[in-house]
């Protein structure tokens, strides 16, 4: 089972500097071709202050610790991400210094076709130098038991 006391647990904040190189490598990894992720000039022409980050880039930003590691999963259990939500107050661009915090927003049991399943909800937020909220991220992780027959379905 999961450590239910984990709910409400918070990580220490950590400052993440958004670097052009990190954006480039992320863009390359996902096969992006849009020059606004690679070239300063193209990003400026499109109205951004500098090279802009793809929408799922906040997944690369980290708080002070990874809360998934403190969940004390039983042997054979593992986490698989099932949902992701992002909200953006503004685009993230190279040069941003974002302070990222993370917390366990919930540990719940949900009914699924294969019976009750534990899920862990982790929420992150990133704020800029002036304390303004830049993005919020919410991840839903399913605690999964090693399946006898993997069927490639995340919610069985």
């Amino acid at each position: 089972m999961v450590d239910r006391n984990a709910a409400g647990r918070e990580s220490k904040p950590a400052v993440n500097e958004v670097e052009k190189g990190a954006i480039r490598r992320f863009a390359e990894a996902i096969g992006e071709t849009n020059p606004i992720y690679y070239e300063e000039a193209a990003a400026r022409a499109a109205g951004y202050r500098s090279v802009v980050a793809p929408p799922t880039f906040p997944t690369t930003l980290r708080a002070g610790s990874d809360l998934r590691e403190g969940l004390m999963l039983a042997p054979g259990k593992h986490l698989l991400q099932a949902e992701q939500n992002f909200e953006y107050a503004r685009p993230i661009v190279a040069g941003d210094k974002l302070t990222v915090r993370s917390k366990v927003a919930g540990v719940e049991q949900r009914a699924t076709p294969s019976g009750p399943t534990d899920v862990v909800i982790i929420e992150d937020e990133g704020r800029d130098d002036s304390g303004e909220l830049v993005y919020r991220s919410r991840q839903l992780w399913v605690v999964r038991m090693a399946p006898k027959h993997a069927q490639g379905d995340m919610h069985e």
Partner: protein
Amino acid sequence: MSSRSAAKKISRAAPKPAAKVAARSTRKKPKAKLAKVTRFPASKMRKPLPPARKAPQPLAKKAQPSQTPAPALGAPKQVQLPKQSLARSFYWSELRVGDDLPPLTKPAVDRVQIVRYAASSGDFNRLHLDEPYSHGLGFPGLFAPGMLAMAFVGQLLTAWLRRGHVRKLSARFVKIVWPGDELTCRGRIAELRKEHGACYADVELWAENQKGELVLRGQATCELYESPQAGGVDGGGLLFALQHSGPAHPSQPGRKAAPSSRGRPAPKKR
């Protein structure tokens, strides 16, 4: 700085622009894609892109013929093309509920891409990297993180959106993406709304594999310029984008002096 390095710089200065031009022109592919996207809203219109720049402001969204800011897409210099195609966005007033976004078919996901994604995202979950480990947990092998498929959908969205901005993006990972899977991402406009003077499009997104199975289902909320007039001149309904980007509107090079109030003060010192 020694005079030698200065000399080096000078001697290198000449070939550089030529190399840049070459580099730009070899990167034709994305341009072609962008050009395609450009035509997307126009295909729903009766008139194909009249160049009229100063059409009257939109009264109702349906009466708006598609109007493009004048930068002639027809006679571009190769070097200028990327900028112009980026400048050419479309507008909220031109969208219709039910419109499809141009689909995006990605090359098959392979193990190298999965490793690269892990490295660039900093998430080294063994399920996606360690074949014996995922085998041990009952999977036939390693598989791609759902976030990779979500990134593909994000690519579809931002390629379509151009100068608009994503305000929300969410996804549910429905089916596992295996190495070798070829994903096609699709989207459709679900709702168009205006709130506090800003224009939003809610978009449904999904991705399917080569067998036609749904692997991801998502939604996005995007903020767009209402019309060329609103977007081009003073930032119109875009609430937040210009605060951080300055009014660097590409079709108005004369205004370039303005943005300095925010950005970096660096260039002043030599």
